């Protein structure tokens, strides 16, 4: 699916982002914080924003692309309004997290790494959310759901629909 970045709609956010860039510009190693901020503000890394970073920080676009593709937190398609992260860390895995992930995929009709067409949900996986004693764990946005069972999935999603 094609996603178009709407410059007009994002005007306020872009302004905030530009201000952030000029603030960190002089710091050593400003690229990572810049990408992190962009991901946070726009929910993904639009081409237009990457170009802006390139101009402001004076780093070639190719290099930025190289860095951005290396880290799994950055995405090139918009993440959903609600980001579901199913933990597949060891503790969760041995307690059946794989089937929880499959249940979310079934419920929403998308695979992990994808976003629903109404941009409402996206599914991702995490490598341990640090709540292993309550495995299996699911995080939606920043809400943590401990000890999740397959049959809870629908109910959990209803909170966000």
């Amino acid at each position, binding site marked *: 699916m094609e996603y178009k970045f709407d410059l007009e709609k994002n005007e306020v956010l872009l302004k905030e982002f530009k201000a952030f860039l000029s603030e960190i510009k002089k710091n050593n190693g400003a690229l990572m914080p810049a990408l992190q901020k962009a991901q946070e503000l726009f929910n993904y890394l639009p081409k237009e924003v990457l170009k802006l970073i390139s101009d402001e920080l004076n780093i070639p676009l190719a290099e930025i692309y190289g860095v951005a593709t290396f880290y799994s937190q950055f995405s090139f398609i918009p993440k959903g309004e609600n980001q579901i992260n199913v933990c597949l860390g060891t503790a969760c895995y*041995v307690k059946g997290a794989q089937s929880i992930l499959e249940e979310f995929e079934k419920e929403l009709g998308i695979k992990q790494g994808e976003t629903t067409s109404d941009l409402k949900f996206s599914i991702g996986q995490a490598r341990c959310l640090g709540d292993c004693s309550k495995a299996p764990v699911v995080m939606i946005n920043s809400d943590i759901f401990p000890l999740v069972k397959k049959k809870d999935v629908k109910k959990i999603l209803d909170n966000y629909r």
Partner: protein
Amino acid sequence: MDRDRLLNIRNEKKPEIVEKLIRDDVVEIRAERVVLKGDYYKNQLRIALRNCDIINPFDIEEYIAFDGYFALYKALNDLSQREVVDIMKNSLLRGRGGAGFPTGKKWEEAFSFDADQKYIICNADEGDPGAFMDRSILEKDPHSVLEGMAIGGYAIGANKGFIYVRAEYPQAVKTLRHAIAQAKENGLLGEDIFGMGFNFDIELRLGSGAFVCGEGTALIESIEGHRGMPRPKLQRTAHVGLWGKPTIINNVETFANVAPIILNGAEWFRSIGTEKSPGTKVFSLVGKIENAGLVEVPMGTKLRDIVFDIGGGCQNNKEYKAVQTGGPSGGCIPKEYLDVSVDFESLDSIGSIMGSGGMVVMDENTCMIDIAKYFLEFSVDESCGKCIPCREGTRRMYEILELITEGKAEMNDLEELEKLSHVVSNTSLCGLGQTAPNPVVTTLKYYKDEYLAHIVDKKCPAKSCKALITYTISDRCIGCSICKKNCPVDAIDGELKKKYSIDNEKCIKCGSCYEVCPVKPVKAVEIY
């Protein structure tokens, strides 16, 4: 801030806090120390976790009440840089991030190397899935890490520190931000700390979801704004590190041990634990265990005591099969070795590693080949791609394990797997590749018969590999039809009050029927 104020805060606050905690039945006094109450904590000795769940992490005065920042004061006021380094060396504290390198020795390298700028980095990337020790310390006692870093900064002559926190820990980031600001307000970080001319500032840097960035040189690359790929180790980071300057990287738990060592001395620390691995270690005891949680015990404690006495054994009275330590770089420890002493050397000697402290317990229903495959998949995913043995080798190993769990492997695949393990560990650039085969090597060593069952008999003894099991319904069936209603692919047929049956052609082995079968005490749905 000065010594009198530290003392005042401690004298005033501590009795108040302790009285309240005792009233709330949270703590008790044991050997003059305030410790958490309850069976789970009875056999623990908490040094790195000393304040966790006792103090309010958002109130710096509560940290000071429990001797916080007294060690920093002592270092700046009473000790020379050399003396701090010597205390750390004599304590024999070994890095808690995985490799167990002596911390004092590392500090000495940076201390005695002249440079106009040095850095100290706290590695809070905690990538080992199944481990959450560092997260707990950051969220529950952030100042213990800040104080440890400041003491380290003083010792080596650095005035700038970074904490590299993984993005998956937003709460830790929040707590740290708050703690750093509070420490600055109180003159415990920033310019002229305690009015003694020492400047030290700490900045937070966030990870972005790459396990390999926990490796020291990859972490440095990431802070500099590059792809987080490890550097060849031509120079020590203690000499040439962040932006080419001498840099010390230590783990969160390592830093949390620093203040108690400075306050109580190296002798005290060495009196705990074993001769070569002094002190305590925090473990995150998780998986199929009755009492999951964080455990801090002296090094040298028997694995059995951790899993059974503190952890209460496996859940639902299932039989213990293995404990996996050290995450993707570690190995599985079988029943025969439950009496192993948990310290760096002993775990190495049986093919596993201490690692950062993850302990995932597995029971009879865990398939060891599936677990090896799980970790290999992790390594395949997280390999940065810089060196070929790791990038390609781990993938080939994963493919073989996939064949085995699908029942499609032959005996020569097993030989190939062993050969590959050897090559990948011996020729990879960084610790990730060098240790990635460990889960395979240890499961091959201790659970060879399980591999053989998959390859020769095409059976999964743990009844976990989908391709190798079949579901059937036995004569115990009461004909309630619940399984039929829950089957997602209509593979179950039958009449009410009569025995139902499963069509194995249609069955996708999702296990729904087994889960819902109400027959007791033994379910009517059986797995072969």
